[in-house]
């Protein structure tokens, strides 16, 4: 029997417990699969929680059309390896309006293609619980959120009136139209996620590992030139740099970090000495103080 006291085992067991509560409490729960490392861990835990059966959850990816190409390739490969079916939702209204991060800026793009897209998909399929890989260590408003987090019929979060949540009892009571966001990884930190990925040998998108990539430097961020939709400014020449990504999102909004960490051990060693937080490279977090809270209140995951 494994050592009962290791904290990764404690975290794993807690997450499995939460996933089972989500399955038992809701009529139509869905896992929001966003392709990143946290989603990879979440999916791995869901497979464990219901073994030998398959997880009783739908899987949904809200595609903003601006994800890194390697993310989409990884997504399709993983789903076929695991024999799972993935729903992919795109905000067609946003596409027809030509919304994008370059033409409209990160805030509008994220609001329309991600937040609105998510709400459309939840309404379209009638999902009453959306399970995501967000963690409390990512940002201060996330640090406040319950594990079962209530959303009203307009998908809004009211951080000033959250429900009590005692011991391992999670309140899944909702009326028609309301929903719950479920966060099984609430108590994990970034380094826990990587340590667990290493321990369990969980596949992740190669963009997390350092490699020479063509980037341009803009507003202090290293942006990977992922396709020909990124217009180069006068005099701007993409340079090969040894970089990796700590988080993955829409490529024009996601900054790379200079790094030599080319495998899991090196990533963990790098994080142990890290002096910046994980979401530093995410442009949309820094529009204004408390901006994640504002987005979350509007329905952002």
């Amino acid at each position, binding site marked *: 029997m494994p050592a009962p006291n*290791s904290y990764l085992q404690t975290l794993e067991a807690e997450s499995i*417990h939460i996933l089972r509560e989500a399955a038992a409490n809701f009529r139509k729960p869905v896992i929001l699969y966003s392709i990143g490392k946290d989603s990879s861990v979440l999916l791995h835990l869901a497979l*464990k929680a219901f073994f030998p059966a398959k997880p009783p959850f739908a899987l949904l990816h809200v595609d903003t059309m601006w994800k890194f190409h390697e993310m989409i390739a990884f997504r399709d490969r993983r789903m076929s390896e695991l024999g799972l079916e993935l729903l992919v939702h795109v905000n067609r209204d946003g596409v027809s309006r030509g919304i994008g991060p370059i033409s409209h800026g990160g805030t509008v793009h994220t609001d329309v293609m991600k937040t609105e897209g998510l709400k459309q998909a939840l309404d379209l399929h009638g999902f009453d619980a959306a399970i995501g890989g967000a963690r409390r260590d990512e940002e201060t408003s996330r640090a406040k959120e319950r594990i079962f987090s209530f959303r009203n019929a307009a998908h809004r979060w009211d951080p000033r009136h959250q429900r009590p949540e005692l011991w391992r009892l999670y309140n899944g009571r909702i009326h028609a139209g309301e929903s719950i966001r479920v966060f099984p990884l609430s108590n994990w930190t970034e380094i826990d996620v990587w340590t667990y990925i290493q321990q369990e040998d969980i596949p992740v998108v190669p963009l997390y590992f350092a490699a020479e990539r063509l980037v341009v430097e803009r507003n202090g961020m290293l942006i990977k030139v992922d396709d020909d939709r990124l217009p180069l400014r006068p005099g701007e020449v993409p340079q090969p740099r040894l970089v990796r990504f700590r988080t993955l999102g829409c490529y024009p909004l996601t900054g790379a970090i200079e790094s030599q960490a080319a495998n899991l051990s090196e990533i963990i060693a790098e994080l142990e000495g890290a002096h910046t937080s994980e979401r530093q490279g995410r442009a949309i977090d820094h529009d204004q103080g408390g901006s994640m809270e504002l987005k979350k209140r509007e329905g952002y995951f």
Partner: protein
Amino acid sequence: MAPPPSGPGAKDMLRLITCGSVDNGKSTLIGRLLFDARQVPGDHLEALARDSRRYGTVGEEPDLALLVDGLQAEREQGITIDVAYRFFSTPRRRFIVADTPGHAQYTRNMVTGASTADLAIVIVDARTGLLTQTLRHSTIVSLMGVRHVVLAVNKMDLVDYSEQRFTEIAAAYSLLAKRLDFAAVTNIPTSALRGDNVIAPGTAMPWYRGPTLLDHLESVEVDRGGTQPFRLAVQWVNRSGADFRGYAGTVLGGSICAGDEIVAQPSGAASRIARIVTQDGDLAEAGAGQAVTLTLADAVDVARGDVFASPDRPPHVADQFACHLVWMHDAPMLPGPTCCSLVPRR
């Protein structure tokens, strides 16, 4: 899951809560722990400096309380409305800290934070001593099942680091704690603002020879249910194919081995554990805190919410019970009609 031979995964975890009245310095104490343990990333420090200029209450210094108060309303009003969870790690332990509101109107959020804690830090202002909130929070912490308490007599810098004042408050709290269900109370004089006895001992209180707060948090031993009789509440009945019927749940207390006799409550049906199933292979034994799937040797009627227990020490089954209630709703409780519901529901 394969046991990690060593490294960060092998550490254990301690969950703690800080509580006490408003303005006793709870958020500052946690901010100090994170700051001195060098667990605050550089970009968060920059945001802290920016926010301190806007909302801060300590002049030119960074206002460490702003590291934990995350909601806009909290920063604007300088209060804590809801529990915030913070994470830090030392070479010896991994910590989850619940920072909870001190205002009476947000006490129900404090209850949420207390319910998952192994240990409570009760913070008292050395100038004012014990307050109504000290008693209220200590009572709630005890009711929620927290057995380990640290009494942090804070703001010692404002009482000239007086040993006598510390001893008085510790003695008063000891009287109060006698009526509560604590296994141990550890008294520590601190100044969260100056950092005395939080991580480093400091030089201001040579008369204090006990551990610093972090020393104590790193070394305290807490019971996680391993010595209790076996209990597992069934969360989910796992049917995979025609032949497999497993009962998924978390071991709440004690341990269980394949082959052990169990009784399912409330029906009282008896059976034997056939397998302890996980994706990483069957286990011979599972202990408190592990999430497993059990199969039984006999076909018995078991549903979500039923409890598996050791047959020699089963839980009592009753339709009446007496208890203390923490009432969380704004409207008062009315005696009479049934108002409870049991979780988990079938």
